[in-house]
């Protein structure tokens, strides 16, 4: 090449199909044409099929009356008057409920197991290892079916319900808890809670600023506890406990009143939490071991005690490693909650992609909406995660 340039002789002309630029354009045109062809072909076929099956495409079904019952509804819904659109929202809220609670339980259990695996206690670490290895290697669907069919459905029937002290009943139709009834004056407790949380945050900020300025530490944990839990409780007591419970009444064939937890919901929540906890445990373990021993040793030699070392040195560095895979585990849990369809919990897929699709036959629209929902959740989360990552990423060289 260099000789060409110095002597001013241009390189031998290559055939146009060997020119990388032209080649790349040809490849891309071919690919685009192929994808376009695929889309056009699929669309034509779909239109043809739908016309033959006399299915009107479009989203008109959204406002039609659903006409089917849903076993768990957090917003008002009735088979006679509610629309398919309403059924969609009921399903979505049920999905979010089980995913939200599942994330909380899985995080608690997962962190416990993950830290236990690193424990110096031989028995505990082996037990945690056993848990992780067993749960991770069994399909989630199998675990859900086991909890639902072999455990919860094997509970006694309605008339032989197990009575748990505190007014709770357990049988194969679900768990019946006392439901709280808020009497006049309870709103003051809610206000107290909100005030307490805000005050705790303000105190935390003030304490940190003061520590940065003077080096003096404030009892943040105790004050937070007092503000968030103590304050509402004091208000509750002052107002004369404006809270009563609606206890479930055991009848011969039915239990009336109280709060009913469906066995489907319990099985799904159990299965998802236990399964995801095994993965979170691994994430946590990997995160903690990723912080090199030298970090903790250096902290000790600077005179930090074990607890501040953990809190100020190890955990912040471990969190940077833990958080991205932890988020993807949360997403996995949310996506796995679609397995509800196998045990009949009315989540988005069971209600919408199952029943609504079967009733309306609007396969394309229904599946597209369902996918869009999960895609929105996934992409939003990963977008936020990327933002966070950019903020905490180590700046190297």
């Amino acid at each position, binding site marked *: 090449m260099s000789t060409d340039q110095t002597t001013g002789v241009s390189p031998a002309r290559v055939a146009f199909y060997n020119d990388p630029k032209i080649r790349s354009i040809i490849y891309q045109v071919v*690919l*685009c044409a192929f994808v376009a062809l695929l889309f056009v072909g699929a669309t034509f076929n779909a239109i043809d099929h739908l016309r033959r099956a006399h299915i009107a495409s479009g989203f008109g079904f959204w406002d039609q009356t659903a006409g089917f019952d849903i076993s768990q509804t957090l917003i008002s819904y009735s088979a006679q008057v509610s629309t398919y659109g309403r059924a969609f929202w009921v399903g979505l809220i049920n999905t979010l409920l089980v995913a939200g609670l599942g994330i909380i339980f899985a995080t608690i259990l997962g962190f416990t197991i993950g830290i236990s695996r690193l424990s110096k*206690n*031989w028995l505990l670490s082996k037990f945690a290892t056993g848990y992780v290895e067993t749960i991770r290697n069994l*399909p989630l669907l*199998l675990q859900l*079916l086991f909890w639902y069919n*072999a455990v919860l459905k094997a509970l006694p029937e309605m008339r032989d319900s197990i009575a748990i002290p505190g007014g709770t009943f357990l049988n194969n139709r679900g768990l019946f808890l006392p439901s709280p009834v808020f009497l006049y004056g309870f709103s003051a407790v809610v206000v107290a809670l909100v005030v307490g949380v805000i005050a705790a945050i303000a105190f935390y900020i003030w304490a940190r600023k003061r520590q940065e300025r003077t080096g003096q530490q404030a009892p943040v944990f105790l004050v937070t506890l007092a503000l968030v839990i103590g304050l509402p409780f004091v208000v509750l007591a002052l107002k004369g406990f404006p809270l009563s419970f609606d206890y479930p009444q055991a009848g011969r064939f039915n239990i009336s009143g109280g709060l009913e937890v469906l066995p489907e919901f319990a099985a799904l929540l159990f299965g998802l939490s236990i399964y995801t906890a095994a993965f979170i445990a691994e994430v946590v373990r990997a995160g903690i071991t990723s912080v090199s021993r030298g970090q903790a040793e250096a902290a000790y030699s600077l005179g930090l005690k074990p607890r501040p070392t953990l809190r100020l040195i190890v955990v912040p560095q471990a969190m940077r490693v833990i958080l991205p895979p932890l988020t993807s585990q949360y997403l996995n849990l949310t996506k796995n909650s679609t397995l509800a*369809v196998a045990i009949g919990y009315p989540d988005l897929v069971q209600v919408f992609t199952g029943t609504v699709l079967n009733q309306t036959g609007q396969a394309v629209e229904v599946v597209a909406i369902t996918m869009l929902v999960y895609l929105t959740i996934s992409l939003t989360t990963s977008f936020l995660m990327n933002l966070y990552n950019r903020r905490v990423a180590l700046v190297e060289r």
Partner: protein
Amino acid sequence: MTMSEGDLAVTEIAFVRKAQLEQQPPPPHMTGAWGWARENLLSTPFNIALTIIVVLLLLWIIPDLVKFLLLDAVWTGADRDACREVVQHREIGACWPFVWERLPYFIYGSYPIPDRWRVDIFFAMLAAGVFWMLWINASRRDIGALYFFLVLPICSYVLLHGFEAIGLEVVDTVLWGGVLVTIVVASVGIVVSLPLGILLALGRRSPMPTVKLFSTIFIEFVRGVPLVTVLFMASVMLPLFVPEQYEPDKLLRALIGIALFASAYMAEVVRAGLQAIPKGQFEGAMAMGLRYWQMTRLIILPQALKITIPNIVNTYIGLFKDTTLVFIVGIFDLLRTIEVARIDPKWAAPVTSTTGYAVAAIFYLVFCYGMSRYARAMEARLATGDRH
């Protein structure tokens, strides 16, 4: 004592030891089983509490498990009466005669009995192929790969589906079931997802904008939605998109769904491997005058795939577990056959469900744990390889 009286008299210094003392054994409570227990189980009050809790947990789980699976289990019997507490008047554990009678159904589904030898040959061929691929020191692994990714799929299709021309009767996929379907779905996922995943990963790193765009969209889309919805899409939307005469059968639709899903995940695993290859390798290959595909095939992929083997196997474990989801679109995989068998009136007893799930659990545990051990062994092996 090695010192004599004379030494002391000369020096007059109180006492100076001239010889090294014999090393003393550690105190008895620091060695042996008791010492180990003190160190590892009972070092602090908190540790003692933890140990007690774990022991209680184990005492709660293990005896029940052993009792159910072995001690109280029923080993012989003809129907449900053998496994019912009301009839036998004793505590009943696992109902093994039920499993024993239903085992052919769990393995072959409703595959015609005279043709089941074809399934056996398929299992044997697959086992040989898997062994060839997994055993790193096996000779001619290139032929092995050819066998695994080309010969085996064709032979399996001819064997399992049938081919009239050579006298093998066609067996409709509706009749397939059990372990056969689980293995078929998993192997199709494995065989398709690796090449497709590599292509997608290369596409995502391509300098050509449209190739990159399409690959990225596909990967992010599939990874963003649950497998259940992909399977729903494959089973209810796919038939709409193809002309009526080519409508794929139910199993094929599920296979397509699983294969596409696995490919997207595989693509990300391979991409991570590609990213770990230093730039110099690409530049070196290009400086040698290699074309893109030569460079990819001879320089980049061998290195990238080598370091990703543990992750690839981990993806396969996930895929193997995910095959159970075809259950939801009505395919008779192992789990589905167990679901069908457990509600059969002939064996209906309180313990039947748990027994069936125990069988499935053992099956998946053995396969997945085996794969994860393999991945870990590979990881250890590759780690030592890097040190040289």
